[in-house]
């Protein structure tokens, strides 16, 4: 793929020539994230978050592999082995705090990345496949993070595992045997801990594979951009390297400053204190909450407190999964011809005053205790969440009158006197 004006890789010396002939990996990298990948010239800092997500994936894999060298996945010693990492292993505390906070930051970055996609409607043709793979990556991340949280075998680990696997019990008929099969027992125990460790080690590499597909699919149409107008000519793009490697590098520096502030000064702020109590199958903590990044979906799960044809518990489970599955249908639910929220006045209002406050409230409610007024609020915002995607979005996208789009990315950046610019020599066309 790529645009015809993309720079071509030229091996400089004997060694790179040798490689280019036998295994053109340097060429592949050059075309994927080097000077050979032309990118719209107007990307904002919101376009940094894909690279940041990639960085945190690598960080999690590196620190995770290190932690696995010291951790023991046995219920007798798992909790102690985590403390052993914290106290005895050289730099173990740094590895563990980096890994634990790294998971949180991975989700921060991914949520911004997803909401960037939602605002700029990046899921629209021709980029549907990128979006679909992205949702799959998000689901894989959730599974990985959930199993990772079980490994320290603290109270929240244990009861989180109990509650989440308990969800499967809601499935009619096969539910209870399915739960027993998933856990390898009748409650979370050694069998469950071991398989969660095995899968927690495996899934990040599956994610890495899915990320490669995500980027592959991205390189067919090329990156989107804040105007939503497709690239029309060479003057609309810049080579990824050095322009965006520099911009992403700067963004990464800022992200690392914030991240390291947490690792060094607030390492337990995003965790739950109860997880420093060893798992006790006979006593439930007063308030069971998942990790903060699951709060919106946990709030949706708990919003269903009434039976209606199906039992309340099954509704909750179905709604929780549907809340993510609905994202798979976005490319077809949003029918508007224009992508970017900047040129969609109605869409933009519902995004900023509907979807964003709803998500913020669901984040808050997922961590709140399960009584009034929180239950009712969860119900209201859950209702809006589904209304937004299933009703409001299809309607506004078919009735709204978008603002006029700039002719090209170049025009959006440089003003209307630079209109149709098809190549360096072709500009300007009119004079």
């Amino acid at each position, binding site marked *: 793929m790529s645009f015809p004006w993309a720079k071509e890789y030229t091996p400089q010396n004997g060694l790179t020539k040798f490689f280019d002939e036998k295994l053109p990996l340097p060429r592949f990298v050059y075309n994927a994230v080097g000077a050979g990948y032309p990118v719209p010239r107007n990307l904002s800092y919101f376009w940094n978050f894909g690279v940041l997500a990639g960085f945190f994936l690598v960080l999690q894999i590196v620190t995770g592999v290190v932690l696995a060298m010291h951790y023991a996945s046995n219920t007798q010693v798992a909790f102690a082995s985590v403390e052993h990492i914290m106290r005895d292993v050289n730099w173990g505390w740094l590895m563990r705090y980096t890994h634990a906070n790294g998971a949180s930051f991975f989700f921060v970055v991914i949520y911004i990345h997803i909401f960037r996609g939602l605002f700029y409607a990046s899921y629209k043709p021709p980029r549907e496949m990128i979006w679909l793979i992205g949702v799959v990556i998000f689901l894989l991340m959730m599974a990985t993070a959930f199993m990772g949280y079980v490994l320290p075998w603290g109270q929240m680990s244990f*009861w989180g595992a*109990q*509650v989440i*696997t*308990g*969800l499967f*019990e*809601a499935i009619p008929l096969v539910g209870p045997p399915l739960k*027993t*099969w*998933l856990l*390898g*027992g*009748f*409650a979370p*125990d050694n*069998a469950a801990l071991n*398989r969660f460790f095995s899968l927690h080690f495996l899934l990040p590499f599956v994610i890495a594979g899915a990320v490669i597909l995500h980027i592959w699919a991205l390189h067919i149409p090329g990156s989107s951009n804040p105007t939503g107008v497709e690239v029309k000519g060479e003057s609309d793009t810049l080579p990824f390297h050095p322009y965006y490697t520099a911009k992403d590098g700067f963004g990464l520096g800022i992200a690392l400053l914030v991240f390291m502030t947490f690792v060094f000064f607030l390492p337990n702020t995003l965790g739950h204190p109860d997880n420093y109590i060893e798992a006790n*199958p*006979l*006593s*439930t903590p*007063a*308030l*069971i909450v998942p990790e903060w990044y699951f709060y919106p979906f946990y709030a949706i799960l*708990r919003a*269903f*407190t009434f*039976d209606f044809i199906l*039992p*309340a*518990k099954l509704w909750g489970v179905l709604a929780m999964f549907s809340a993510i599955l609905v994202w798979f249908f976005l490319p077809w639910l949003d029918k508007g011809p224009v992508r970017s929220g900047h040129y969609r006045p109605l869409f933009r209002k519902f995004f900023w005053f509907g979807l964003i406050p709803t998500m913020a409230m669901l984040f808050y409610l997922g961590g709140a205790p*399960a*009584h009034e007024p929180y239950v009712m609020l969860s119900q209201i915002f859950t209702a809006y969440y589904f209304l937004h995607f299933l009703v409001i979005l299809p309607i506004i996208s078919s009735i709204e009158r978008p603002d006029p789009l700039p002719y090209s990315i170049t025009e959006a950046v440089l003003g209307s006197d630079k209109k149709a610019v098809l190549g360096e020599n072709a500009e300007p066309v009119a004079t």
Partner: protein
Amino acid sequence: MASTTGNADATPDVNDGVEGEDGVRRRDFINIAAVSAAGVGGLAVLLPLVSQMAPSADVLAESTTELDISALDVGQSIKAVFRKQPIFVRRLTPAEIEAANAVDVSALRDPATLDEITKPGHGDVLVVMGVCTHLGCVPLGAQEGENKGEFGGYFCPCHGSHYDTAARIRKGPAPTNLAVPDYEFTSDTTIVIG
């Protein structure tokens, strides 16, 4: 087509590509047979891979528990462990039995009478799993001084499920009564669970 392979395309008159006397092409037959054999083999490989995740023999071996309830006085409960899960045994007071029997069973979410929940001749011994049927928390009420909920049985603090003195769900999100494990009385004061 490479000439060295000498395949059916190049030499259509060998038996491979043509119909036999019964109208079946040999190549089709071989394809179907090979794919079926691979499919059956694949399924056979899948079976152990799936089955290994089910509870192992030692986990299943833990699945009986013997309890001596001779020391259990009227109105008292004990918490025991069965399959690594808590189990509640309570000797009901006459008032609790009366309260349980006074309920209109048909109006319950999960209709059951106290007699159906307990064993014949031991209507005062209530044996249930201490696992909330909502999302699996351990309800309160089995220990002295714990909150027994609005119906005097068990109360799950996680999302507020109230169970009555027959461990039936009366209020809150839990879909069913607390589960009754398989158990029997081997003597008047001994029960074997599992």
